[in-house]
């Protein structure tokens, strides 16, 4: 089966510093793949290249055959790839509902004229979007907080909200950057279930960066290990767990 996201020889050089070197991945539809490695290994840099924040020094990225290398982040999102951020980037002063509604923005079709005249078209789309956003919020039980400012949510809820915002863009591929950071064990388990549920319900393909080994080993079908920008291992969770290279470079005792 042809890959949904085809990444070949992806390399990022920052004036002499090689952040990522020769990264390859053929992500198939509905796969759940994990990207792990010590801090500074280059994982977020890969995400940044995939989403157009950085322009790769070398290599090609293709989404459904579309080349992504020269595209701007907003164009890549419209093609169906959404992400969350390592350091949460919510619209802090906007409400929880508005954050999710903004995720829907690319699906709006009304323009400035309709806005000035408050047409039926606008009302229709706004109502639909509001309903759809509330549905999304319900997934994480955030619908009761819809009017709260995003910055006033507890940390774990903020992470979840960011995922919902990305989901609102109706992506084909979801890139999650450390979704479990700051979550306790129970929350992490919930997150594991939710990610799998989301994958099924929204027909998603997911690539995630994580440090929490329980989550990674628990839900990822395939794992890539990065160290100093290089891919040092690839395989199923079992293979990675028993790989001496990986254990040497990164994997210590699994988290208690």
């Amino acid at each position, binding site marked *: 089966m042809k890959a949904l996201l085809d990444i070949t020889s992806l390399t990022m050089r920052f004036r002499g510093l090689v952040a990522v070197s020769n990264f390859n991945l053929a992500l198939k539809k509905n796969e759940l793949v994990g990207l792990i490695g010590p801090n500074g290994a280059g994982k977020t840099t890969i995400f940044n290249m995939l989403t157009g*924040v950085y322009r790769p020094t070398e290599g090609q990225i293709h989404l459904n055959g579309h080349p992504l290398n020269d595209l*701007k982040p*907003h164009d890549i*999102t419209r093609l169906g790839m959404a992400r969350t951020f390592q350091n949460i980037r919510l619209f802090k002063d906007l409400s929880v509902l508005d954050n999710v509604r903004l*995720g829907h923005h690319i699906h709006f079709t009304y323009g400035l004229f309709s806005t000035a005249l408050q047409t039926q078209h606008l009302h229709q789309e706004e109502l639909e979007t509001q309903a759809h956003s509330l549905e999304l919020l319900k997934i994480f039980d955030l619908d009761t907080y819809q009017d709260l400012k995003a910055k006033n949510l507890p940390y774990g809820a903020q992470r979840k909200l960011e995922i919902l915002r990305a989901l609102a863009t109706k992506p084909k591929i979801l890139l999650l950057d450390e979704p479990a950071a700051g979550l306790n064990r129970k929350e992490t388990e919930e997150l594991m279930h939710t990610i799998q549920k989301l994958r099924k319900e929204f027909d998603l393909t997911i690539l995630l960066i994580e440090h929490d080994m329980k989550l990674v080993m628990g839900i990822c079908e395939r794992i890539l290990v990065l160290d100093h920008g290089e891919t040092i291992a690839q395989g199923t969770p079992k293979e990675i767990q028993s790989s001496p290279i990986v254990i040497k470079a990164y994997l210590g005792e699994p988290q208690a």
Partner: protein
Amino acid sequence: MTKQILTFLIISSLLFFGNFIVPAMMNPYLFMILIYCGINIIMGVSLNIINGITGQFSIGHAGFMAVGGYVSAAISFYFLMPLLSLFPSDNTISLLCQNTLFVFSILLGGVGAALFGYLVGLPSLHLRGDYLGIVTLGFGEIIRVIILNLDFIGGARGFTGIPAWSNFFWVYFFAVAVVMISFRLLRSSHGRALLSIREDEIAAESIGIPITRYKVKAFVLSSFFAGIAGGLFAHFIGYLNPSSFTFIKSFEAIIIVVLGGMGSISGAIVAAVITTILPEALRPLQEITKTDFRMVIYPLLLLTLMLTRPQGLFGHKELSDIISPFLKRKKSL
């Protein structure tokens, strides 16, 4: 749709009657202040779109007001007035024509200003905050210097003979229109998109919002409105001079936005009224002391505001957000 048409008719009628009643109720000086309030509301609300809602640093707003004023004045003076003189004056039809042509002139002034907004905005809106500020400041000054050197619109001597077609009706008609459009924009997805750019550009781009395109659109809309304000101003005084559009004018607009609260439309309206009335209220002090303390008090007030309540009067909120908790409390009683 009918609700909207009804609202439009009611407001228009109110303004129409107001046009006759209001000037009769007050002396020309107070009336002038009232007109300036309306014009400053447009300036403040328009600047709020780009500075407050979109979070960009535009500090040359007076330049767009100048373009609008001069374009509109030139069109009225060179084309419309000669056109109207062909018709017999002092009857309803010619009055109707005059007003229609006036709207035409004002809108064209706005379009001229919008065009400049596009020319200035397109190359510079991808620059980082303070750099954008410098560019807008520079362009504001350059526009003024260019006007100074154009003789057919008066140059340094000023443009005289602009027909006095502005009145209470038109100034407040446009003010209401600008305010309504701004509120509708703010409540729409496009308005939310602008807010998201203010909050976090990188995150906004990551959810598919083309940030530079939106910034330019906000800039153009904002300039369009400022141009309208300029046209209304020109046709009220009947005279334009580049010295009315210096950095001080841009600064006044900035004060309105900051005092009202960045992003708050109601705040901008209230602040516009305050900043129009305040210097006039201080005028007696000027008479007594024979010195213009206003330009010292203004910055002092601004500094005090910055140090004590930098979020301005309304912060990010609108009047409705502040009033609604009171209404809710009443209901529960």
